[in-house]
């Protein structure tokens, strides 16, 4: 009875997917449409149907229908399974060849057929006993491997391929070395490393200081540290750089003040005498990027170290104190060594994030070239040097992948902080008094600087021309928001909202699914998904950007210029959030709950839906919310892929910065920050405890 029910469902599943495949062959475009699904004429649509324009493709539905006579009840499971697998693979190969050989791009129809083939394949491997015959999980694994292959492995491989193709199209295996050893590249690499290591060291030190202060000081000021959780989440990465320009740029406040006192005709300069100060662009270059990155990355290292610090059992420090060690000695000999893995982790995170940062160097770089901007400039504008972009992309990828793997291998397990499950008791040891006083001053300065930065962003949008004309005005905001919905800031803002709105739930779902599969299931192919997620975690946005341009600009998968590619980019970029959220939530749920469900005859799908999802609800909400924010503020990858019709908020702001409209840019930036702030607070109010913070 039970078995028969399963049989029926199995067969209904197969036939539904067959039907979907055949139907989409009949009514959906086989080939890609030049102007997209919604902007094509009826004729173009008509012509893109496979059976009208391309008789060869008729083989596909015929092959699909072949499933029917072969898939009859009563046949042996093994035979049926093999049949499904072989046919699905064969048709996939035929289908792929049909696009790759004539070099035409796939359409919606062939895409859907590919998905139904993946589904049929999953039914086949499940029948053969893969993943204990669970169709849903087999399907999820197949789809995830398919997605990772198409949107991670394939584009990354494209970089490696493009680097050996010379400008004239011929193959040049050693081109990589030519490019890398050519003039200037060495300097770019050194710049990147120097910057990344300095930023890593500085953010670690500052993170430690702030962490100690917030957990161990007795000052009421320590509660203000909470803003560290919120600000970096809601602030697009380059906005800090922009505000630095407002303060310290050529027309910045500091220059103004100095000019007022020391410039020619200044307060302290006698009439007629030459000023002893000239306006200077000192902020551009290393100093500026360094400052901007330190400001925006310190919160991340702070969070890593705080996590570690609050997990230290206070009894250890108390033990040290009872052995007559002073607070200083205890800090130096007990606390800091216990924190060492956390510090190393924070350092590596700082290095990776600095190397991958694109917005700040773009805004503040000046003459100081780093890999991420150099990649952008090799294909932005007229240069279009794909080989160079690819070579630099490889360097950046290798750099961050190496650091990521070091981190994963040596630091994830090597924690001295023992999690025993035993309630830690005892009081935390406060900081030495003098240290605390010094830190208080320091923290005040820091907070003041942050405060001024954010104030300048908000004010910047309300003055006529920062640096020259400080009359208050609404003109920037008016230009953005009151010229109708089809101009100014609206199109990019609605695009951002819409794309992020689609991307966020998908990110959360796939993140949890991947986390579930990685932590709870064992199967052949596990390594593929594992490696795919490592890449997703480690690949810098800029590299994803060029990789996608190279992979999806031409047949067989032509997606550049579409909204789809932006949504996909957002999903991939926010995926680490989803996966991490899923992993940490799943680690709280005992696997025996799922096993109990399986033994109650529920399949994986029912188990996920009825047992796991209800328990994961708050994780899903916070994952979705945080992915949404990430997607709204992401820039490094989307800047390569946004086109005139698919501009998003961040790329729009950057384009205004590039054309010198700083007022408009900061006005938009401040609106974006405020929107995100309100959204974050709302979500935190809904989820109760601020779970978003914990997921960073």
């Amino acid at each position: 009875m039970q078995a028969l029910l399963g049989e029926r469902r199995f067969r209904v599943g197969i036939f539904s997917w067959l039907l979907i495949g055949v139907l989409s062959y009949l009514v959906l475009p086989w080939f890609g449409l030049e102007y997209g699904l919604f902007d094509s004429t009826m004729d173009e649509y008509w012509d893109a149907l496979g059976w009208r324009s391309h008789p060869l493709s008729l083989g596909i539905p015929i092959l699909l229908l072949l499933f029917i006579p072969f898939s009859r009840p009563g046949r042996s499971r093994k035979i049926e399974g093999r049949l499904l697998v072989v046919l699905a693979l064969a048709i996939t190969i035929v289908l792929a060849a049909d696009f790759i050989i004539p070099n035409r791009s796939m359409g919606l129809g062939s895409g859907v057929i590919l998905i139904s083939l993946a589904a049929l394949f999953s039914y086949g491997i499940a029948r053969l006993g893969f993943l204990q015959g669970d169709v849903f999980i087999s399907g999820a694994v197949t789809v995830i491997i398919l997605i990772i292959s198409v949107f991670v492995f394939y584009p990354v491989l494209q970089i490696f391929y493009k680097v050996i193709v010379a400008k004239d199209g011929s193959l040049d295996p050693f081109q990589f070395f030519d490019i890398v050893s050519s003039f200037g590249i060495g300097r770019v690499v050194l710049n990147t490393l120097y910057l990344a290591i300095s930023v890593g060291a500085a953010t670690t030190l500052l993170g430690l200081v702030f962490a100690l202060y917030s957990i161990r000081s007795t000052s009421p000021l320590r509660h203000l540290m909470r803003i560290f959780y919120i600000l970096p989440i809601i602030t697009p990465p380059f906005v800090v750089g922009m505000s630095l320009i407002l303060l310290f740029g050529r027309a910045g406040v500091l220059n103004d003040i100095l000019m007022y006192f020391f410039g020619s005709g200044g307060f302290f300069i006698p009439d007629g005498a030459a000023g002893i100060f000239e306006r200077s662009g000192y902020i551009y270059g290393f100093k500026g990027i360094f400052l901007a990155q330190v400001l925006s990355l310190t919160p991340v290292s702070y969070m890593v170290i705080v996590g570690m610090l609050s997990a230290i059992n206070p009894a250890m420090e108390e033990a040290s104190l009872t052995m007559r060690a002073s607070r200083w000695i205890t800090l130096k000999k007990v606390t800091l060594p216990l924190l060492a893995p956390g510090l190393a982790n924070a350092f590596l995170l700082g290095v990776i994030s600095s190397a991958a940062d694109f917005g700040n160097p773009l805004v503040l770089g000046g003459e100081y070239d780093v890999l991420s901007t150099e990649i952008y400039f090799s294909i932005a504008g007229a240069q279009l040097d794909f080989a160079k972009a690819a070579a630099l992309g490889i360097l950046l990828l290798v750099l961050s992948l190496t650091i990521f793997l070091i981190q994963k291998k040596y630091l994830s397990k090597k924690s001295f902080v023992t999690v025993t499950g035993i309630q830690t008791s005892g009081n935390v040891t406060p900081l030495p008094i003098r240290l605390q006083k010094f830190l208080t001053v320091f923290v005040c300065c820091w907070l003041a600087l942050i405060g001024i930065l954010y104030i300048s962003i908000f004010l910047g949008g309300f003055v006529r021309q920062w640096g020259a004309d400080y009359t208050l005005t609404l003109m920037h905001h008016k230009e953005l928001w009151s010229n109708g919905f089809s101009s100014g800031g609206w199109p990019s803002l609605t695009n951002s909202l819409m794309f992020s709105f689609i991307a966020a739930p998908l990110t959360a779902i796939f993140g949890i699914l991947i986390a579930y599969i990685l932590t709870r299931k064992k199967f052949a192919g596990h390594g593929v998904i594992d490696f795919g997620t490592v890449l997703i975690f480690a690949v810098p946005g800029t590299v994803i950007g060029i990789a996608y341009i190279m992979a999806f600009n031409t047949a067989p998968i032509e997606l550049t210029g579409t909204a789809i590619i932006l949504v996909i980019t957002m999903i991939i970029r926010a995926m680490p959030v989803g996966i991490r959220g899923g992993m940490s939530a799943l680690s709280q749920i005992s696997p025996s709950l799922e096993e109990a469900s399986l033994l109650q005859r529920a399949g994986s799908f029912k188990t996920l839906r009825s047992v796991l999802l209800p328990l994961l609800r708050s994780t899903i909400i916070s994952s979705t919310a945080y992915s949404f924010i990430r997607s709204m503020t992401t820039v490094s990858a989307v800047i390569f892929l946004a086109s005139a019709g698919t501009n998003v908020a961040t790329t729009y702001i950057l384009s205004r910065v590039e054309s010198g409209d700083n007022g408009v840019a900061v006005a938009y930036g401040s609106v974006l920050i405020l929107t995100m702030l309100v959204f974050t607070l709302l979500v935190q109010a809904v989820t109760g405890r601020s779970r978003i913070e914990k997921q960073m």
Partner: protein
Amino acid sequence: MSRNSSIKVTLKNISKHFGSTRVIDNLDIEFKAGTLTTLLGPSGCGKTTLLRLVSGLEPPTGGEIWFGEQDVSDYSATQRDVGMVFQSYALFPHMNVEKNIGYGLGVLKEKKEKIRDAVTKVLQTVNLDGYQKRYPDELSGGQQQRVAVARALVLEPKVLLFDEPLSNIDSKLRRSMRDDIRNLQQKTGITSIYVTHDQAEALSVSDEVVVMHNGAIEQQGTPRDLYRRPGSAFVANFIGDSNVVDGVLEVEAGRSAILLGGTRIDLGERQIDNLPGKIQLSLRPEMFQLRETGDRERHVVGTVIHSAYLGAVTEYFISTPMGDIFTTSPSSDGQYEKGKEVFLHFHPDQLIILPPARA
């Protein structure tokens, strides 16, 4: 749910490897239809693994699993028709008792009223009727355990599995719970496999006990068999307490005798499988009577090196020519101080001669 529908469970040449660790290697075992069999063994010997292989939660590396006359090796846990009670109970925290127990029936698309009736019925069996609307965190440990049993029973599975179901319950309650489980199992007649650490629990609930050691089966038999005729020093030590000592077997004209540290014990015409020569014996602590007097030829003599008064009985460690011996003797037999010389009286029939060690 009657005895004639029970099935036996057979594992044929089953192996389970995790990477290079061979947790279970080429094991054969049969669990008799309608019985409750306990798996007993030291921590890490593979009891849970064996249970999970039967449930289908863990696919075997090799071998076959049969339920009755059906090969279920290829069936997943969902298809295998087994119920399991987890050590942690694994009750769904977001569902009340009724939903928890009715979960599987819901999966099978049973009607609402039918589910409600089935839940009520099974709750009556575990004496928890009326608790339908409680959530797991509103139940005591023992009640949660019974809900877990009810959930495992409600689908009338072919096989019931228990993985240390009582280990989270205090010892007083554990006694009555284990009797409940025993009664339930006998009433339903579902073939059951029960993992425990607690040998008293094992001996009291089971029809058969399987002693496992390093992923292999040391001995399988009724509790009585295992205690009275342990197949190896390991089993002798594991089931009850035991002093394993060396002796020499002599056989002459159909009469055998054993040399135990200089004392010769005549066994008369007792049938012995071992070859004459060195053998191992198991001496249960309670077989000895301690006396101040005795025959140096026929009784073992020793010196008390440690004694501990435990109320009804007193434990002694006694140094003897055959090694240090652990005994328990009724406190009413008198107390022996440390350093005192005592004679160990026992009946020769109570000597357990261990079979020769397998190669």
